[in-house]
């Protein structure tokens, strides 16, 4: 049985869309909520806990969307960069992100 994963929604603004297009990965973005584009990164339960520990301003929306929300914009920019490099939205991309020195400790935005 596949492990349960949770989404981090990277909402695609103009800047982010340009980067995806440049990398030829615009198709990785899904359409959601009547026309918005989102890159849905998937994280494992352990990664979820680690992210919430490192980014205390973020919140796991347990009651409605079951997603990690309220991460700082610059953090999501970096997650997007890693996803583009790895050409992946799966936990393997998040594993790489969690190794980045700048985000390895508790983050104060």
């Amino acid at each position, binding site marked *: 049985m596949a492990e349960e994963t949770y989404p981090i*929604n*990277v*909402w*695609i*603004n103009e*800047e982010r869309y340009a980067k995806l297009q440049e990398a030829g990965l615009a198709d990785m973005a899904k359409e*959601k*909520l*009547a*026309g*918005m584009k989102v890159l849905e990164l998937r994280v494992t339960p352990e990664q979820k806990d680690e992210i919430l520990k490192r980014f205390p*301003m973020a*919140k796991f*929306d*347990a*009651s*409605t*969307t079951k*997603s990690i*929300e*309220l*991460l*700082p*914009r610059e953090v*999501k920019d970096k997650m997007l960069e890693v996803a583009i490099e790895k050409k992946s939205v799966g936990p393997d991309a998040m594993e790489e992100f969690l190794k980045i020195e700048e985000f390895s400790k508790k983050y104060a935005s």
Partner: protein
Amino acid sequence: MAYIGHGGKEIVERVMSPSEAKEKIKGLTSVEISNRAAYECIDLAYGFFTPLEGFMCKADVDAVCEKMTLADGTVWSIPIVFDIDSKEIEEKGIKVGDTILLTYTGNPLAILDVEEIYEYEKDKISQAVLGTTDEKHPGVRMVNRMKDRFIGGKITLVNQIKLNSPFDQFFYTPKQLRDKFAQLGWERIVAHQTRNVPHTGHEWLMKGAWFCSHGDAPVVDKDDNVRLGTGVLVSCIIGPKRTGDYIDEAILLAHQALHEGRYFREDVHMVSIALWHMRYAGPKEAIFHAILRANLGCTHHMFGRDHAGVGDYYETYGAHRIFDDLPEGALKLKPIRVLEWWYCPLCAEVTYSGLCGHSKERQKFSGTLIRSIIKDGVKPTRLIMRPEVFDAVMESADKYGFGTPFCTEEYLEKRQPVFEVPPLD
């Protein structure tokens, strides 16, 4: 016109004229009070907490904790207490029978007639009202931070508060609101309590609640003119904020933008504020909110999932079920119990989870999700957040929020206060 509030008691305003107040406060011992106590003085004095006319004495606190009633049996779920340090009582020689002057930001706000001075076990309050003594619960932290004595007694306002813009446009006393409802021709009023900027899920919650409250009442008069007589009262809770919350001004002005954008007819919707420090008591706070809105003249109150909850301390629909436990007639106001609305790509609309059968395809959204979208620099689609609401949020960010619609340390430190208490001239 009689203004009858909760428990069948008349709404009493305890507000002194300036000339009488100036004489009355001469020589009184003064005590500087917190923001929470100031809000509660205002609420008590104008009848928001009818039948209470002052801070509770011990017998009422006991009854609230043990039976969810006042000592006289009227349903009530949250103790309203005035806390003070025993050292201050001793230093100032405060005793039963005294009248003390309560000051806020150094200026006279109210007088308190000291009927009782007592101690109370804080854990008893927390366990009974909040269902926990866990310090991680914000309501428990509030109770634990209260000082070591309570004073029970009647409150009278001795000064008029000055509400700052934009709050001044939205503050109504219970009597003023009831007069407004009469002016609008509203016979049925459903309260929508909020601490959030409205997305379309909220908008549809309000519209659904409007339908429930209107029920089988007529929609036209004998000449076929549309005559609805049912309204939504948006009641924005104004209280403590944390970083990451929406700023108060954005919440208020965004709801008003929904009104001015005519997503509701002018005669079925209005926006107001309620001054209250949330206890996050879940079901018991739902009862309290129902009482508060009954005092405002509402006939119905909408309750969604986990109303007034925090973390996972309460059952998801505990705030729905608690109303079934009330004795018949204990609360005049009717709860409107609602499920969530979601976006369905197959229905191509925001639709009610209780009716849409596309549970696999539906896309849920929440206030938290919308905040993330805005933080990411994306404008939500109009089906999710009305453009007028978004614009009001962004304008508030510039005007009041130091560049962001979300509370920051800078906002918390430098924001304009909701109201000021001027010197008593």
